[in-house]
């Protein structure tokens, strides 16, 4: 391995296999999202969804810092979080197609994909809505004597929500094992961070709650891993919550209804130059962790995997309308 990366991953305790796994995860997310968009254009997915393209390093770097039985809460832009947390892509695809065998039996769709048993407490259609949930899960982990940690994803827009404020203060007061990870992708829908927040430095808000805060390059998967790892270790060892801000960018429109009137082509292009996947790939190739052939093979495997998932979803049954009312009450 070329020195730079070697030293860094050595320090992080990341073996080459894990680096390759992280790279593959990023590609799986990217390709999944591209296919979702294609299926939508083709009229085979309906409703709404929010693509994660451009932010892959955040979900993958962050979740890689968790133990398998740790929890996450996700957002409306949650496909990447689910995949990073180990979700089955066929079951996600089935859910987006509204199928009975999807993660939510077709009841939830893109904004509600969850797998509580696997530690994914759910995407959320309410901006900031998952922050109190994550905080409560952390409270429960402590009460149950589990050494689990909760990783809470949310966007820069959520920072303006009262729920963010109430929940982070709550976690600070009780020193709960939760890591708040804000994905600052520069915009809340059309609202740029500099206009939506009185202080655009989101991590700086940690001081208001008396907890540690840190900003990290959200397009650098290893930097995200390192920062989250540090926060997770602190949380697990009783050190309480941390507020992290990962600076990244959303390549696509906010959702299908977005005409991108609020930002320039140049800005988008500039960020695409900083593609988190290409960047990591170049590091890995330069370091000899991956060969050009490996890269092509992985790309091919990912394409095939997602193609298979699409076909799987296609063949799944729709929910039976007579079962409409199932699952409201336990």
């Amino acid at each position, binding site marked *: 391995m070329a020195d730079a990366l070697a030293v860094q991953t050595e320090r992080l305790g990341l073996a080459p296999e894990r680096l390759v796994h992280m790279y593959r995860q990023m590609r799986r997310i990217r390709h999944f999202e591209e296919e979702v968009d294609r299926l939508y254009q083709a009229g085979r997915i*309906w*409703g709404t969804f929010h693509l994660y393209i451009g932010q892959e390093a955040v979900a993958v770097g962050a979740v890689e810092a968790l133990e398998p039985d740790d929890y996450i809460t996700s957002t409306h832009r949650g496909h990447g979080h689910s995949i990073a947390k180990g979700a089955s892509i066929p079951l996600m695809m089935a859910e987006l197609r509204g199928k009975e065998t999807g993660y939510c039996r077709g*009841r939830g*769709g893109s*904004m509600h994909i969850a797998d509580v048993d696997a530690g994914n407490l759910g995407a959320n259609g309410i901006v900031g809505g998952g922050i109190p949930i994550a905080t409560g899960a952390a409270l429960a982990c402590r009460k149950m004597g589990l050494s689990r940690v909760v990783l809470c994803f949310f966007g820069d827009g*959520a920072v303006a929500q009262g729920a963010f404020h109430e929940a982070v203060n709550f976690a600070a007061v009780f020193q709960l094992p939760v890591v708040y990870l804000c994905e600052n992708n520069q915009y809340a829908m*059309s609202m740029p961070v500099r206009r939506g927040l009185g202080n655009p430095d989101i991590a700086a808000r940690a001081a208001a709650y008396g907890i540690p805060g840190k900003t990290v390059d959200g397009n650098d998967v290893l930097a995200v891993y390192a920062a989250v790892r540090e926060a997770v270790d602190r949380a697990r060892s009783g050190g309480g919550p941390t507020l992290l801000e990962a600076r990244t960018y959303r390549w696509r429109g906010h959702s299908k209804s977005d005409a991108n009137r609020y930002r320039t082509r140049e800005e988008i292009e500039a960020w695409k130059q900083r593609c988190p996947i290409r960047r990591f790939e170049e590091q890995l190739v330069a370091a000899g962790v991956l060969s050009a052939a490996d890269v092509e093979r992985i790309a091919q495997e990912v394409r095939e995997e997602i193609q298979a998932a699409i076909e799987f979803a296609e063949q799944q049954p729709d929910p039976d309308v007579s079962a409409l009312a199932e699952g409201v009450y336990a």
Partner: protein
Amino acid sequence: MREITYAEAVREALAEEMRRDPRVFIMGEDIGVYGGAFGVTLGLVDEFGPERVMDTPLSEAAIIGTAAGAAVVGMRPVAEIQFSDFLTIGADQLVNQAAKMRYMFGGKARVPMVVRTPAGSGTGAAAQHSQSLETWFMHIPGLKVLAPATPYDAKGLLKSAIRDDNPVVVFEHKLLYRTKGPVPEGDYTVPIGQAQVRRAGTDVTVIASSIMVLRSLEAADRLAEEGISVEVIDLRSLRPLDADTIVASVCKTGRAVVVHEANKFAGFGGEIVGTIVESEAFDFLDAPVVRLGGKDVPIPYNPQLERAAVPQAEDIVAACRRLMRESRRAAVRP
């Protein structure tokens, strides 16, 4: 008369009122250059600028609360809540502050504000973006609640709401935004508190609002072919409610179906049944009043399930047919 969409009608009302009264301004998330999640406010910022078409931070409690604060000192804000489901976040400011301020202060304050918000299902946005919460706000003294069904009313009622000196919540069904209808250019208003008979009939009265008015009219067409004559009432204003129009119609037909997309259980359909039963219409009822409303489920994502979760034209047809059958039984009531 020229035809425009419901969304265009809302936009026109906002523009005309802002031109007419410098105290009027609109505020909300992404209503500026983005034009709003449903494009309703598209272009308004170009004419009125960012001070009167304010893109706010992502803070529903602050949006509603600052609107109330601005209103009480003399402005006339029109706040947009991007989806009516998010009213739950600003509920304290709307219900405990805006609605009660005047009364708590001994009738000495005015809170002339409007909250516009897209509501309802049918877009595959699932449980947190598809609710119909009109009943909640109808239940709160101090608020007025509107649910226009046509482009004409969308413009005329919104203008009345903006000129009203009280907090008014306007529910705009997402599926209506693209519907077209005749709308006069320039100024006119539709009075708050008056229902409208959309179709005259003699056998059954269907009492509906918002999207359900369209479905009721569709049902009425189908039923006409079977010789069942349906009168369709569009409530338009949910609080205050136009009891007279409802009662007069039911006295005439002797049969009533109440239909809304909001959950049937504890929904405002019960208020309408109660109003009918308490009125002289009770003595003219040839059959029980039937309520149709949302099923007891959060709105699901899958389109077939989503469709099944709320009343459709065929449900209204079936209810009217049943009512015609049942009323024969009613004749031999003990």
